[in-house]
């Protein structure tokens, strides 16, 4: 079958119009798109979950003890199981002169130095004074939680 020059011209014109149309749909769609900024609320909920959820750090026997965290639960495997998130989280626990650190989603936590760029990142740091239960022994501890999110 012979394809005339005119047919080819029309085919190219149709493809061109389709591409332009698709680009316009996406550009106008993205211009009209809106997102609710929930970074600070999400960070607050993540921090509360870490401290208050017995699957995360909260110390529990027959009940959950508010404000007490379990030393045995402070490990990367447990924290990865407890938090299903794509946000970067750094936990820094200090007690009795010892300091331990856990990073979740290292591709984001590695960029903590770039947090000055508030247009690109949302970084929130909070400190908590908690009771650390380490094999029945209760010691005062400080937990610093950083949450790093791409805006």
């Amino acid at each position, binding site marked *: 079958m012979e394809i005339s020059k005119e*047919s080819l011209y029309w085919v190219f014109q149709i493809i061109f119009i389709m591409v332009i149309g698709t680009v316009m749909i996406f550009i106008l769609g993205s211009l009209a798109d809106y997102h*609710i900024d929930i970074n600070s609320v*999400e960070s607050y909920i993540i921090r*509360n979950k870490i401290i208050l959820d017995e699957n995360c750090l909260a110390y529990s026997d027959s009940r959950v003890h508010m404000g007490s965290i379990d030393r045995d639960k402070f490990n990367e495997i447990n924290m990865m199981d407890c938090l*299903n998130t794509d946000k970067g989280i750094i936990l820094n626990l200090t007690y009795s002169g010892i300091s331990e650190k856990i990073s979740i989603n290292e591709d984001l936590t590695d960029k903590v130095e770039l947090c000055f760029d508030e247009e690109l990142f949302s970084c929130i740091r909070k400190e908590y004074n908690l009771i650390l239960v380490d094999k029945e022994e209760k010691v005062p501890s400080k937990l610093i939680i950083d949450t790093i999110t791409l805006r």
Partner: protein
Amino acid sequence: MNKKGGAQKTILYIFYILIALVILSIFYSRLSNYFNGAEMDKEFISRDLGLMIDTASFSPMSIIINYNFPKESIIENKDSVLKVKLKLLESPREYLFLSEVEDFSIKSNKTKIEKNGEIRIS
């Protein structure tokens, strides 16, 4: 030869118009959602409901929340990703749950969140 060329041209014109109609209809359905507030409703429900379920999930207390949507909505959870749609054939707004939540699929104008040990959405 001229007749054949004329018919070819007519078919191409019809195809051209059909393509334009398809583009316009996609354009309309996509943008109308932004301008009538449906997209905002989806975004709000996905974030609001997602955060509420997450908050309830780690509470040590028993909780029952009755959540009413502004209009009938389709909410689904698969592999801890909440998807909210208002119509069957449209792109959903998503929220990634912090906690593990059992899969569910609801089409209604309300939902009930129950936390008594495990969290249950019905």
